[in-house]
């Protein structure tokens, strides 16, 4: 299954963020969208999710053609995981995981056991009935991960889900996510080259203003990879150079 994005255009406050962008995403693989802050990665991700049209944000004009080979449309097949604050403070951890099913109009009693199992998988079975306020940042993202898994969509979009966490927590959560999301089509936005190298089967580097696809790096090996893996350090240097090149040429953009 291929997800193809054709002729994607987005303008924010009359400035072009990206224009006539064409991208392909291979099914069952983990693709990272890498680029400097403000280049338009998150906008692109929201566009793919279908959020740009229906949940339009202010001052934004957007249009694109998005197709999937196997699915009739992406609608209803996408999960979106944000950086933070995605948990609802009035619900317990368990209810937060179940909220997607409730919003879909399903009977949550059917999913209760599965939710608890998923919380166990992410290591939070002791916190099933706690409130999000009592959890640390890393734990909350684990709940968000469990929520995404319960939603059980073939396409999972991640918007810098671990960038607000400390290095160790980030490392552990990257491993957990790779394990849990195995086999799904994952598109992850990140500004950290190392994260992209650890997790991505393909890294699409976006840079410039308006943003363009400047390079694609393919890593066929299984994720998660270790930081001292085979070509990791040389690729890391390469990517840094590339980003540096565009850093001085860019102008602030909508992200």
């Amino acid at each position, binding site marked *: 299954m291929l997800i193809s994005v054709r002729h994607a255009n987005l303008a924010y406050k009359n400035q072009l963020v990206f224009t006539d962008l064409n991208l392909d995403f291979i099914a069952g693989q983990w693709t990272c969208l890498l680029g400097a802050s403000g280049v338009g990665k998150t906008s692109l991700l929201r566009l793919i999710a279908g959020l740009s049209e229906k*949940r339009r944000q202010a001052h934004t004009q957007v249009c694109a053609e998005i197709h999937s080979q196997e699915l009739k449309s992406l609608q209803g097949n996408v999960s979106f995981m944000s950086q933070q604050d995605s948990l609802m403070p*009035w619900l317990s951890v368990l209810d937060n995981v179940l909220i997607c099913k409730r*919003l*879909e109009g399903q009977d949550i009693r059917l999913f209760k056991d599965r939710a608890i199992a998923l919380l166990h998988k992410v290591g939070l079975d002791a916190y099933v009935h706690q409130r999000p306020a009592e959890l640390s940042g890393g734990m909350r993202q684990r709940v968000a991960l469990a929520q995404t898994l319960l939603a059980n969509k073939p396409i999972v979009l991640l918007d810098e889900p671990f960038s607000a966490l400390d290095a160790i927590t980030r490392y552990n959560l990257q491993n957990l996510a790779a394990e849990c999301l195995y086999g799904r089509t994952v598109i992850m936005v990140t500004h950290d080259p190392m994260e992209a190298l650890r997790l991505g089967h393909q890294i699409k580097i976006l840079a410039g203003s308006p943003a363009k696809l400047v390079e694609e790096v393919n890593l066929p090996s299984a994720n998660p990879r270790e930081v001292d893996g085979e070509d990791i350090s040389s690729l890391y240097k390469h990517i840094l150079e590339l980003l540096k090149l565009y850093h001085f040429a860019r102008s602030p953009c909508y992200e």
Partner: protein
Amino acid sequence: MNNIVLRGLLSLLGLFGLWQLAVVGLHIPAYLLPAPLQVFASAWLNKTLLLQELWPTFLEVLIGLGASIIWGMMVAIAMGLFRPVRFWLLPLIIASQAMPTFAFAPLLILWLGYGIGSKIAIIMVVLFFPITAAFYEGIKQVPTVWLDLAFLAGASRWRTMRYISLPAALPALASGLKVAAVWAPMAAVIGEWVGASQGLGFLLLNAQTRLDMPLMFATLLVLVGFSLLLFYIIEHSLKRMIPWQKQD
């Protein structure tokens, strides 16, 4: 000094002390401003009367507040769900706030009579804006990330409202309710001034007309005490019902 009631009581005590000093020191005559001791004496002497007249006002406030909350929440939800409602109602809500109570109170009494019903209606007009506007603001400002979640799950407008917007807006409603708690007794009193034969507002007017100033001030004290108690009860209940609200 965490308890707002404690602080209120202490400030009040200080105020009484100043008051007593002013009356004695400045030789203020009793028909203008009675001394606090006279007021307390009158309050004690007329304690049955004050409690008797507190009851109708209390009923008006209770029912008026309750009805305002239900009505305000319904209107805010309707505004959140349907654009035309929002479009036409929002200016009306703001206008209701701008209208001086004394202007429309007589009209309501003319339509609804001199009983408790018109006072409740007056309270509902006065509280319409603080409750509805606050709740609607809360509904409007639900974080995007949750609304995105609802969208991706294919939730209908109503389901989004019920499971996300409504609970998310409760803290905003709470602040509106706290304002309402303080205004409700005042609105009841104004209603009683315009047409009633019972209640604390009526007693206030009667005492003032017949120059029983100690009783008038005693009634005022009871009113203030009632307002503070109401505020405390509502704040306390809200804390219990909305425990995730950020506290200061």
